[in-house]
């Protein structure tokens, strides 16, 4: 089999990235590692939201709920039986789950599948609605999931949450999952099915008149999307090792929507870039929330100040880059090669054209 230049470049890039991540895993401190892991988790959230909204045009606000399902399933499957006993001191855990302990990979996959099933179950009635109504319905379902988590004490330990979840997530897991998610999503949206999804996004009536089964294609987007959201939820649970229902309130969904809009609707590259920038910026801005002094002026720490700055950044992006950082463009080797050629021949014109819409 002969490989094209782009395939070879992709393979080399993947190897280099994997090597760098392995190095980072070995030498970076836990704080930085956690930020890098979160970059990947948020990237998966943004990419999957892009699949539902950016490519299929369904404004769904159920992401926090799907992530919660994946996180709880993965957490319950990876917690050791002794940890479960110490966690569930108010009400004992259901016997069925008490002695289950699975390796990380099956736990993640089962988490994804359960999230996908829940997502499809929600989508079934909700997909009769369109636009804002779909958003409200999915937001409601997402909240229902959270309330169920609070109240199903024998399974979820209620508001106390789950503690001592084994910290299995490392850079190779999180970025590996992101790579799989990107691969599947990109292949899906470039296929005939993805073309039909984009047709549904642009004009439902015309798509249906051309023989596209609306329900089937929207459902497909939901199921695939919810699967990866569930996996990302599992990664998150095994990263922060303590989860409770409050982690999955609707602000998580809003963050995901914000990230995806910032990156560009219909650009997977944009989603990854925006998710990484968001996670890193949020950490860089952390000092703003504590007390600091400028000259003789002492500014008291205001909790939540980071979100104010984030909102301003989001406004700036929406004002000046109407279509997000990347619009609908994707990273491509052809673009890189052209850029290098142009730089070589000394003409630097147009090299900044990438991030402009």
């Amino acid at each position, binding site marked *: 089999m002969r490989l094209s230049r782009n395939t070879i470049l992709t393979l080399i890039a993947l190897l280099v990235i994997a090597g760098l991540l392995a190095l980072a895993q070995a030498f970076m401190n836990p704080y930085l590692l956690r930020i890098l892991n979160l970059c990947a988790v948020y990237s998966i959230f943004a990419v999957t939201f892009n699949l539902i909204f950016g490519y299929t045009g369904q404004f769904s606000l159920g992401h926090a709920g799907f992530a919660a399902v994946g996180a709880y399933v993965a957490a319950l499957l990876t917690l050791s039986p002794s940890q479960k006993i110490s966690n569930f001191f108010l009400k004992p855990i259901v016997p069925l789950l008490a002695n289950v302990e699975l390796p990380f990979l099956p736990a993640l996959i089962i988490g994804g599948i359960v999230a996908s099933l829940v997502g499809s179950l929600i989508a079934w009635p909700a997909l009769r609605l369109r636009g804002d109504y779909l958003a409200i319905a999915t937001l409601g379902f997402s909240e229902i999931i959270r309330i169920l988590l609070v109240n199903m004490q024998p399974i979820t330990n209620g508001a106390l949450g789950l503690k001592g979840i084994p910290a299995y997530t490392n850079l190779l897991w999180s970025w590996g999952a992101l790579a799989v998610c990107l691969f599947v999503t990109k292949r899906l949206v470039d296929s005939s099915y993805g*073309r*039909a999804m984009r047709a549904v996004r642009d*004009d439902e009536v015309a798509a249906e008149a*051309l023989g596209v*089964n609306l329900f089937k294609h929207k459902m497909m987007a939901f199921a695939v999307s919810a699967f990866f959201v569930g996996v990302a939820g599992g990664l998150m649970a095994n990263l922060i090792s303590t989860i409770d229902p409050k982690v999955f309130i609707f602000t998580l969904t809003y963050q995901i929507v914000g990230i995806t809009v910032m990156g560009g609707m219909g650009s997977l590259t944009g989603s990854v870039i925006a998710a990484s920038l968001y996670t890193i910026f949020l950490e860089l801005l952390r000092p703003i929330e504590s007390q600091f002094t400028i000259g003789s002026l002492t500014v008291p720490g205001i909790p939540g100040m980071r979100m104010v700055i984030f909102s301003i950044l989001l406004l700036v992006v929406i004002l000046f880059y109407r279509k997000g950082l990347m619009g609908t463009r994707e990273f491509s080797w052809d673009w890189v090669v052209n850029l290098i050629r142009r730089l070589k021949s000394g003409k630097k014109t147009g090299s900044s054209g990438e991030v402009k819409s």
Partner: protein
Amino acid sequence: MTPLLKMVNVTKRFGGLTAVNNFSTELQAGELCALIGPNGSGKTTIFNLITGIYVPSEGHIYLGGDDISGKRPDVITGMGIARTFQNIRLFKGLNVLENVIVGKHLRLQSNVASAVMRLPGYDREEKEMRQTGMELLESLGLARFAYDEPTSLPYGQQRKLEIARALATNPRLLLLDEPAAGMSPSDAEELMTFIQHVLKTFELTIFLIEHQMRVVMGICPRIIVIDHGEWIAEGNPEQIQNNDRVIEAYLGASDHA
């Protein structure tokens, strides 16, 4: 011979409003037939009933003997009815060729898993779709726009692209909803020649809506006229032009004595 399309006593009510009242007609295979009537007379509603966007309140619609009333629009398209829209509805995020290939998606055999894995079966189908899509564009003179955005095309070409896209679904019956809307008389004439060309090359049956009578007179051997959702006349252009009820519907009654 069974007619290709048969509508039997079809009625559509929206609450108290009867948009189509007890409408019956038959279309033979290979026919080019026009449906005309004043604004708001229910022409588009009849198209929406045939294509499944609306379900008839009463009556039945048959395609080559199969009852299609109440079926989903995409199922009806799969059975062989394609349409265009009065206001152009192209997919803005897809290029011209992709717009056409979407119409071939319903005949795709490979499932979504093999599409994601790019299995040989899927690859072959995708290649075939692109090839036949390109051939279709070539035969309609749109090939040079294949990789352009549909909105960058001149208005008349966008109309043709809508027809090309409908043809991609391999229809037996093509419904054209005011294909010449918003066109100058000379452009409209050119489009009518184009429609005759399509009728012959693709061995279709075409049912078209137009409310400018002059446009269809030249090319349609049979014209059906409706007003207020009711059948009022049918015949060749000459008969229609001299029909009293038609003149009354378009110009109003001369005398209310």
